[in-house]
């Protein structure tokens, strides 16, 4: 310890630049805090549309706090040593080759910071990964939505969620409103680009791709999940009731070809009653379109020689 102290010892005349440097550092820290509140949006991920996005945002902010301290400390030490120990007439460089205790100290210190970050992560992880139950104002989900155990999809504690099958295709998203995506009934309701979901309801997504890799991402509703041919990926979101009528925007986040930039995705949040009306309307529209197509086919077949 004494060796370290001696190595760090300074003569009184040299203390003024230290005080100056400390003042500058404090001012910088203050500026960062002020700027942080003013530009919080520019420094943190999107959130607000779903508890998992909010928890990711929390976790991010915890790491950001630790990161700012490390950043100021290390850059401060760097600039302080550059300023303090710049070559001057008569200055003599100390021929120090190392200090084992100091080196062990900062190795352990760095490791401890990372342990803290890992603990933060494990505390927040369940809330990000595991879907909660739907709220009281959510869609009344039928019992049929309970999946047998063994499905890779994570379900809320009560086993009830509204499932939507998300399928990425060059360059559009297709949504099928069905529970078992592998064997969805042929008359299942579907839509393209805009997904309509009820608020206060836990929505689980089964994500896959038809042609090349894509990635599902609505920033305010949580992280992104790759859609890869041959695999099924899963995520969930639960939009609070106050967002009814709001449209959340996102886009494909994995290079999928020339129009990758235009492969947009939208999630429209509506009240459960509106959702049921929309679903019924959509079902009727699809049935009508199918019927019209069948008649057209028949007509064309009759006209053929």
């Amino acid at each position: 310890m004494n060796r370290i102290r001696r190595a760090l010892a300074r003569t009184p005349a040299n203390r003024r630049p230290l005080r100056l440097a400390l003042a500058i550092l404090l001012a910088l820290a203050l500026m960062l805090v002020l700027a942080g509140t003013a530009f919080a949006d520019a420094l943190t991920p999107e959130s607000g549309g779903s508890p998992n996005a909010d928890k990711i945002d929390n976790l991010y902010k915890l790491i950001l706090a630790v990161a700012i301290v490390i950043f100021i400390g290390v850059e401060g030490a760097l600039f302080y040593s550059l300023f303090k120990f710049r070559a001057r007439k008569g200055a003599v460089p100390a021929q120090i080759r190392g200090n084992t205790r100091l080196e062990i100290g900062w190795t352990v210190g760095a490791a401890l910071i990372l342990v803290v970050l890992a603990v933060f992560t494990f505390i927040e992880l369940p809330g990000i990964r595991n879907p909660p139950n739907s709220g009281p104002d959510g869609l009344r989900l039928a019992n049929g939505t309970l999946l047998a155990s063994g499905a890779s999809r994570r379900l809320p504690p009560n086993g009830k969620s509204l499932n939507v099958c998300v399928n990425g295709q060059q360059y559009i998203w297709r949504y099928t409103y069905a529970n078992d995506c592998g064997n969805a009934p042929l008359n299942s309701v579907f839509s393209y680009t805009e997904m309509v979901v009820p608020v206060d309801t836990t929505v689980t997504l089964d994500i896959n791709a038809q042609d090349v890799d894509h990635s599902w991402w609505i920033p305010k509703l949580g992280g992104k999940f790759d859609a890869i041919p041959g695999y099924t990926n899963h995520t969930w979101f639960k939009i609070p009731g106050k967002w009814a009528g709001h449209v959340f925007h996102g886009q494909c986040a994995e290079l999928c070809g020339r129009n990758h930039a235009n492969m947009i995705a939208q999630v429209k949040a509506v009240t459960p009653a509106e959702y049921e009306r929309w679903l019924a309307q959509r079902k009727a529209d699809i049935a009508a379109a199918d019927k019209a197509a069948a008649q057209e086919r028949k007509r064309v077949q009759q006209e053929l020689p």
Partner: protein
Amino acid sequence: MAATTEEVRTPVPQIVARRVERERTGWTSWVTTTDHKRIGIMYMVLTFVFFLLGGTEALLMRLQLSQANNTLLDPKTYNELFTMHGTTMIFLFVVPMMAGFGNYLIPLMIGARDMAFPKLNALSFWLLLAGGIVFYGSIFFNPPECGWTCYPPLSETAYLPNGGVDAWIFLIHLTGLSSLLGAINFYATIANMRAPGMGWGRLPLFVWTILTYSILLILALPVIAGAVTMLLTDRHFGTHFFDASNGGSPLLWQHLFWFFGHPEVYIMVLPGFGIISEVLPVFARKPIFGYKAVAAATVLIAFLGLLVWAHHMFATPSPTFVFIFFMLGSFLIAVPTGVKIFNWIATLWRGTVEFTTALLFCVGFIGTFLIGGITGIFLAVFPVDWQLTDTYFVVAHFHYVLMGGAVFGIFAGIYYWFPKITGRLLSEGLGKASFWLMLVGFQVTFLIQHSMGLDGMPRRIYEYADVGNLEIYNLISTIGSFILGLGVLMTVINVLRSVKHGVKAGPDPWKANTLEWFTTSPPPVNNFDVIPRVRSVEPMKDIRRQVERQSGIVEAPPAPAAESAVRA
């Protein structure tokens, strides 16, 4: 104190030969050379040309993104540009540039007369050139559009039928072979040809990093060579390794690619660390703080670097257990990296820092790389990565790591070793202007990109809608990129001018520590007439002290004062 090498009388060797081959001059002397110094120079010049090409591609992309919904470039051209940019910077600039430094410096630093296999060395260079030609040849037909990662199924013939992807595959094969042969050559040279007395504990830190770089190349390159061969047979010979509709797996490619791709990051930054570890002590006039810790951290980073590849795949459908393993692995790698940064700062501590351009680039390196390291922690936390991956936050992160970690290191190396290579000093004024423009330009370009990513802008998109602050962020970034480009241009001008008109450097202009400064600048073909016995990590300091004692100019008082006397 005068230069030391003049003291040594050149002995005249007794050569017995049937005939003396006339020394070649002109361009044929370059094409046929097996001299490690000439090969090193060719490496550096060629890769710098690719750096300028890759930089031009980047500026074109930034121009396209300077405005929302811009129509300057069509999506096909834009995809081609980012594929060319990434591939060029990685395979044709940073990795072979480090090989160039290694080629020129390793034999000089360890007191050898050449590399272990000089002809193999020449082959490495010509394979690199062939790879570059094959790849850039595609601009006359169809450049690849799949990004430097070329994920199938997009890179399969069903989606990209033209020859661009094949050009990319051949580039990986040729430059891979070039690097592999080079790596074996470096390893053999360092293991067998060190000067008398230079044990592993006296190896210069740059040599340690090139040794580690070589081992990583030998371990990682065969995997990517196998993977691109599988892609090639998928494309043209009917196999289905990566085709999900026929029992293949697109995820398999990602695992194989990143098993190579992540070590590749360390292949690029470790030699940069090595350059910093050589330059900092010289201009702080202090020995490196904790030589053993810095060398050990290099090896540990390389080892851990082989175990973190799936942190590029946190958004894929994989078990949580896998994510946790790769998150903790990525955390671990921050420890030796942090140790290095602390050791560099401690090297400056209580030194007498001389602000040469080379030192400025080192400082720019540490300050910038630190930010890249810190954002790396955000990305290692996989739930946070779910928000950040594949956005401009990641683009900012890896430019902080690779521009900060490799490019600033390379520029520090250029300013530090240019006098050894050419015998002339670069202009410090132009150099400092170049440094400040590059540093400011870099920060303006990339700091704001974190915010773009956080605001929801994915990478690899040729246009974006004007939502939120995206347009102003992008405009700032574009302006920064041109400042950065101007900074690079200043160094190009500096180099072109100084080759002819620079101040004569002499053998040891910096009063440096390692053996390359023992010989003349530029060194003769045989490097050293006499190879001194190495007694410490800083052989040149020992030699200067010895000369001092023998000439009796300054009797060495206690150690620190002796240092300042040497400097005076």
